[in-house]
């Protein structure tokens, strides 16, 4: 499994926020954030219906 290096200070900040954000471990927190961010770009490529769905709103 690939590993990445991050700055100690950043790690501590993430660690301090982990419980507050409701995650059980730092690893789970980081994986969720990365998945969320990456999915934004994947969605953009994989969601050709987005314009059609938005056009269902009367305003558009």
């Amino acid at each position, binding site marked *: 499994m690939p590993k990445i290096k991050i700055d100690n200070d950043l790690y501590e900040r993430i660690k301090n926020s982990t419980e*507050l*954000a*409701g995650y059980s471990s730092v690893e789970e927190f980081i994986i969720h954030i990365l*998945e*969320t961010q990456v*999915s*934004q*770009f994947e969605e*953009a*490529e994989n*969601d050709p*219906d*987005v*314009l*059609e*769905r*938005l*056009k*269902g*709103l*009367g*305003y*558009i």
Partner: protein
Amino acid sequence: MKRREFIKKSAIYGVGASLYPYGKLLAGKRNHKLKILVLGIDGMDPHLASVYMHKGLLPNFTRLANTGSFSRCATTFPPQSPVAWSTFTVGAPPQLHGIYDFIHRKPASMLPYLSTSKVNPASKTLDIGDWKIPLIGGNTENLRKGIPFWDYLAAEDIPTSVFKMPGNFPSDSENVRMVSGMGTPDLRGGYGSFTLYTTSPPANADKFTGGMVVPLTFNDDFVETSLEGPVNTMRQDTPKTRIPIQIWRDRINSVVKLNIDGHELILNNGEWTDWIPLTFPMMSFLSEVKGICKIYIKNVHPEFVMYVSPVNIDPSDPVLPVVSSEEYGKELVENVGYFYTQGLPEDTKALSYGVLNDAEYLDLAYQIINERSALLDYELNRFSKLDTGFQFFYFSSLDQDTHMFWRAMDSGHPLHDEKLKQEFGTTLQHLYVKMDQILGNVLERFDINDPNFRLVVMSDHGFAPFRRQVNVNTWLFEKGYLDLPNRNSMESSGYFSNVNWDKTAAYSLGINSLYLNLEGRERFGAVSPSQSKELLKKIGKDLLSLQDPKTGQQAVTNIWTPNEHDKRQHAHVPDMIIGWNRGFRNSWDSILGGLSNEVFMDNDDKWSGDHCIDPALVPGVLFCNRKVTKQQPALADITATILADFGIPIPVQMTGKPLYHV
């Protein structure tokens, strides 16, 4: 929300225990007998209300105004419902909640999305043969930031109910009774998608948005077809789920027999069904999705035409969190019946495309009002028995129906004529009277002179004509801010399909938003950040001098340029918000990145009134059974008043001030 979780959430938004002094609350300032009822009537206009009150048509609104107050209520910039109701929700402007338009875009991909909520698919699935089983992820997300005022109430154990607040999806609160509002999708994942079954498909059927057309061919007066449901994400090939429909027609008696999902229905020409429960199979015997729809037989013969409403999520067995708990959804369905769960139930697209005519649309509109009124009645029954509590209840009808019928009373609208005026010129007046009757039912139940009862009737904005549409992207092209490689084929309804980004400085997306094509932010950014301030200044000056060549009228009366601090709060903040003059709005094409041959065009859509303009021109209404003493009340002030009335300190991030001395 439990108090411990609430304190955590407060810390995330920088409120913190030191700024939210619970000790002070526990000292006993709270009024334990107070009840607050807020009726949200989207789009209720202060001028129209005043005119109808003056005519004596709104006796209940007049009584409320005479008991306490009636005033204008300042709206947000831009005065769009998701923006304005989010401001009411968190008691602060868009800089806090981050909702700036119906549509935002991801700068890195340049693609648009609904600003208020999103549905995230499962991130991990187990693939077995043709089946894809979701394992991890898959959720709904409200994109509004900040703490909604009802979390403060729930943290103090005040019984709280929030019914259909716009921008509030999903309904994710444990301690607040909630039905989600504008932004809630239908079962196909859109924001209202009808199905028209017909033996005579309209010539422009391929242009329809917000709905689909299914051509039919009868054989001996029988045809079998199907109703499209949600995509089956459990299958590898993600097919659309379908429910078979069998139709028999009796041409002599103009009667239809339908069989849909085990329901056998006999319907006359021009008859509506009530809600029909449907089950879409996802995985044999293991997983299914429940929906509801209404059917209208528009014509039996010679051409057969049948309208099926968007398939709504069944609130008694919701596949997405449209209600705060399944029990609450079941309770509502058992006591009141099924109801529209999609964000905006009025089928404005069906009217715009002629799928429903004016009378048919209004028939459905009144069904929606009556359905909502029955839900209010049920909620008020419960609320009246409480010792203390808060209830918010929302009506979308006045807003959506004013959008569609402004043309009938506006002699300056391109679609106005004498026949329309004769038939539908008083439609808006009737709708205001209907809302007055609903208020009358409330006044019969509650004593508005009771010092422990607060009644607020509010709207998020007023209304204005929408006569001329302005294609901002075409205007940007003409002014040299946007480049097209092929100038001879300018007209395009595609999403910026013909734009040369390398030479483009700015583009418009959404109803009021304008963005720079910024280096390091946009996918093909071409404007250096050091140039942005001067460029925005120039575009703003040009916009404010833009005149309609047909009338000579100024098209834009106000602009707002969010500052760098605002942009640091939210990455998606527009670089400029355009405040249109009365009568103008961004064009239908330009909203989603299209260009047209002309900058100015008549608005020939039945969507003929609008409010997405200069906020100074479309304030909302504020009725209250207490005398409002604050000058120029605004939406966030109502939020602050709710907390203050309950004895809850107003958090620092809320910008509103109480409407009267508490």
